[in-house]
């Protein structure tokens, strides 16, 4: 096992653990905002670590650039979705 493979393994395992923690938070946290917090952590950092880990496995530069683009697009959509859900939660709060 080369250095690159070890790097991939460490990063991917760390990313998977973050996803697991985020899912646990989504299931266990009491209110919408803290559940969102857990979910967006897993989304951005977990996916980021997995992408980082996969970078050394790419044969070409283009493959790496595509991976980073995927991460950026996921960031954009995750951030927007979090904002939308948080907005609805904030609007509902006064009535609750």
């Amino acid at each position, binding site marked *: 096992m080369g250095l690159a493979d070890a790097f991939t393994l460490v990063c991917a395992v760390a990313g998977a653990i973050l996803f697991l923690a985020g899912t646990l938070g989504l299931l266990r946290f009491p209110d919408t905002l803290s559940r969102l917090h857990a979910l967006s952590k897993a989304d951005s950092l977990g996916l980021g670590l997995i992408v980082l880990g996969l970078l050394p496995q790419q044969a070409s530069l283009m493959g790496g650039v595509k991976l980073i683009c995927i991460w950026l*697009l996921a960031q*954009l*959509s995750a*951030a*927007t979705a979090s*904002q*939308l859900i948080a*907005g609805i939660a904030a609007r509902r709060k006064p009535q609750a």
Partner: protein
Amino acid sequence: MSLFWSISLLFDIALVAGLIALALHVVVTRDGRGAILAFIAFGLLLGIGWARLASVDVALTEAAIGGGLTGMLLLRAHAHLARHAAPPPPVAPEPRRWLVPAIACGLVTLALTAVVLAFPQPAPSLAHQAVASLETTGLGNPVTAVLLAYRAIDTLLEKIVLILALVGVWSLSRDAAWGGASQLQPAVVPEPLVFLARVLPPFGVLIAVYEVWVGADLPGGTFQAGTILAAMALLVMLAGLRPAPPTQARALRVMLAGGPALFVLVGFLGVAVAQGFLSYPEAIAKPLIVGIEAALTLSIAGTLALLVAGPPDRAPEP
């Protein structure tokens, strides 16, 4: 090697268990919206399943259409029903209501299980023929070759089914709204959605063009690209940046019919200059196929977006 073996099999088993659990949840839950969300998750998991079956083309289509577009269609329908229809009466869980169907459906599953376990060995495959003739099409992706060359007639008929479905959906509008536009924009558009609708579409169009181009040789193609374009159009209309087009607009109708029309035209051209209907002259097979794909992508995108938008509900402007 055997460790890798068992881990990968374990992953597949977990995936299959997740799929079945989500499907069961859809059947038994009382919460209508929860069932739809479970179905969206089901579509995404199924996409991973297709990737595990080494069918990346299908995985892309399933994630985009099965999870994404169908999910949006169902969520919009749920919101509409919540406004216009009384909640369905609670049904008493009498055993006679579900016992007989459950036994019958279990028998269907058992029969299919027997079929799956009795698949012939070695498995028959058309992969050899598909690869052997690949050179004559100029393509590198055998799935695209099946869709647009070997079995082009299926793809053509499917395009016509899509258009017919759209005609059916439009014909369900009220008489006054015939030829008008559908209303997609909600009363209050949240700020982040407008931001996303401004930032994302250029990238979406770029990715769609890339998918069509790369689909000739690698996984990707018209359906996937068309779905991405449709999603971008729906995002812009949902955020209220542009209204939905009136369904009587001539340019829209030309775009929708253009792809299949070009396909039919090239098909008849094949009768004149090649071996028959829908056969391409070998020298220009690849440019012809990519050209058809480009036109088809636009009409698929328009048809899918308008199928999600639903029948027009505003009267056309005179």
